[in-house]
């Protein structure tokens, strides 16, 4: 258990809803859910969620902290926004799902091997480095996410696609050597650092 997780368990003992309201992006909306089920029924990935959004909201209110934060469910959200459009109470459901996933990740209790979490990490590390996504490094990183031999296999599979992209000028092979950075990358790093400080202060996370 991470230090932050211990702190939060102590601070919000038995009141997970309050914890979500304070620390999760758009978490203050959770209490507005009237359990109609339109979000769950409207989700294109609905059948693959262990706990659909409607159930997640009820679990938050029921104080099922462990079950919610370690769940793979909210990582299933693909941001299609169908639920937000249809929700009769206008809950920003997509944002709450991302908020919960992000919070679980910050606490260090999100499922370690969840592919969405791993991809999100990869993407984030990639983009903050130069302030711009390096697509070549990102996709190669993605192929090698599950080990070296898997990466080679995947890479060979995708070779024709890569060559096609190369031929049509849609792929820069020098991306591997770096480059593609934006001019003010260091300023972006400063901004991100500042944003992190503000968030930590606002949510009472130890920085």
């Amino acid at each position, binding site marked *: 258990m991470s230090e932050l997780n211990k702190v939060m368990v102590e601070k919000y003992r038995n009141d997970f809803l309050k914890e979500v309201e304070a620390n999760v992006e758009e978490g203050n909306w959770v209490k507005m859910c009237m359990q109609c*089920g339109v979000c769950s029924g409207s989700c294109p990935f609905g059948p693959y969620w262990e706990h659909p959004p*409607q*159930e997640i909201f009820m679990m938050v209110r029921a104080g099922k902290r462990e079950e919610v934060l370690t769940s793979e469910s909210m990582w299933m959200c693909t941001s299609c926004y169908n639920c937000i459009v249809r929700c009769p109470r206008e809950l920003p459901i997509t944002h709450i799902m991302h908020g919960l996933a992000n919070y679980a990740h910050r606490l260090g209790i999100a499922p370690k091997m969840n592919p969405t979490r791993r991809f999100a990490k990869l993407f984030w590390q990639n983009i903050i480095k130069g302030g711009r996504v390096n697509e070549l490094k990102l996709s190669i990183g993605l192929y090698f996410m599950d080990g070296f031999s898997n990466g080679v296999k995947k890479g060979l599979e995708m070779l024709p696609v890569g060559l096609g992209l190369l031929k049509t000028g849609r792929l820069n092979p020098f991306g591997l050597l770096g480059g593609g950075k934006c001019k003010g990358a260091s300023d972006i790093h400063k901004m991100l650092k500042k944003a992190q400080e503000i968030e930590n202060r606002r949510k009472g996370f130890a920085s």
Partner: protein
Amino acid sequence: MSGAVATNETILVVGGGISGMTAALEAAECGKDVVLVEKNPSLGGRVSQLYKYFPKLCHPTCGMEINLRRIKANKHLRVLTLAEVDKVEGRAGDYTVTIRLRPRYVNENCTACGACADAVSTEIDNPFNYKLNKMKAAYLPFNMAYPQRYVIDSSIIGTPDAEKAKAACKYDAIDLGMKEQTMTLKVGAIVWATGWRPYDAAKIQPYGYDRYDNVITSVEFERMMDPFGPTAGKLVRPSDGKEAKNVAFIQCAGSRDRNHLKHCSRICCMASLKQSTYVNEQFGDQAQSTIYYIDIRAIDRLEDFYQKVRANPTVKFVKSKVANITEDRESSDVILHGVDTEGYHRYDNRHDLCVLAVGMEPSVDARGIPGGVHADASGFLEADAANGAIFGAGCATNALDVNRAVQSATAASLRAIQVINKVSGAEV
């Protein structure tokens, strides 16, 4: 009719539905002079379009008959149909109202014999049946219409069809030269009872009311049960005319939804519970009703009715707001998709017919009522001292069932009478 005399001791009632009729009658039976204006060619309003009332399951025609007898017997009450209020000026005890009268093209000689309808060949949508069928362009709005006089639809004026109607009339009742008129009335108080209209179901995109034949509204379902209605009283599917034995009801179709109507329309739960009894009435044990709901709001004594329907083994309750509807192209069956709240089970349920329990919205947005009155966020008229002597009644003020609408109308009538009594000096 344009010579109607009224003074500032007259009460104007706007809207001739159950609330307007009640308010007008209560005041007139107290000896007050009342002018009742109705936009349609007949009194009766939406209640006359219902098959049965809840919770007693009696027929509204009965109450309508009583009210019409009261109207005919009362010398203080005058009824103007095809009339709309354009302007209201003045203040409590002294209003000047401008009323626009559309031509009926039929005068008082009409005996409702129907010869004009036989003569005319043009057919138009029948609004009494929510356009589920057609009717002749010379028509009696419905069997119990008051006044019992035919109407020539303005769409055939100037065509040979209108001349045919005129030629067929043995009583010289058809006057094709009638023009729109305006009149001004002096009145002391106004009861505003313009009622409600069903929310436009086509706006609820995931339910496909505009795309699927077998998705209908609760008001249309009501018309199907009328022996004189578009299906001659048979519950059949619009797509193929097959018996609709397996019927789904979707609650809160447009209500309690910030994308549509913010308010709870109050009557829809009871309406669907009632309509589930229609399915039994037609098909007995073969009937299968499924009610999809967020929560059932059967208040006060109506809870008994709910419990009775709950105990009916042919009625199933699914606690879930349906996410969307698709259609099986081959059978035209509707398939309802969603997740229920009692266990979070995903369902894809097939039904013959789906009835949307559509919400109520005010038929006239109170924010636009001439004279200026207070309105709530949904456009219902709100009681406020600043409204002067304009009193809301029935569904113009809130989503109400018939019982509560009549109570509200009686209360509005009493308030109007108080104003008139002050004007006349009967009360200081």
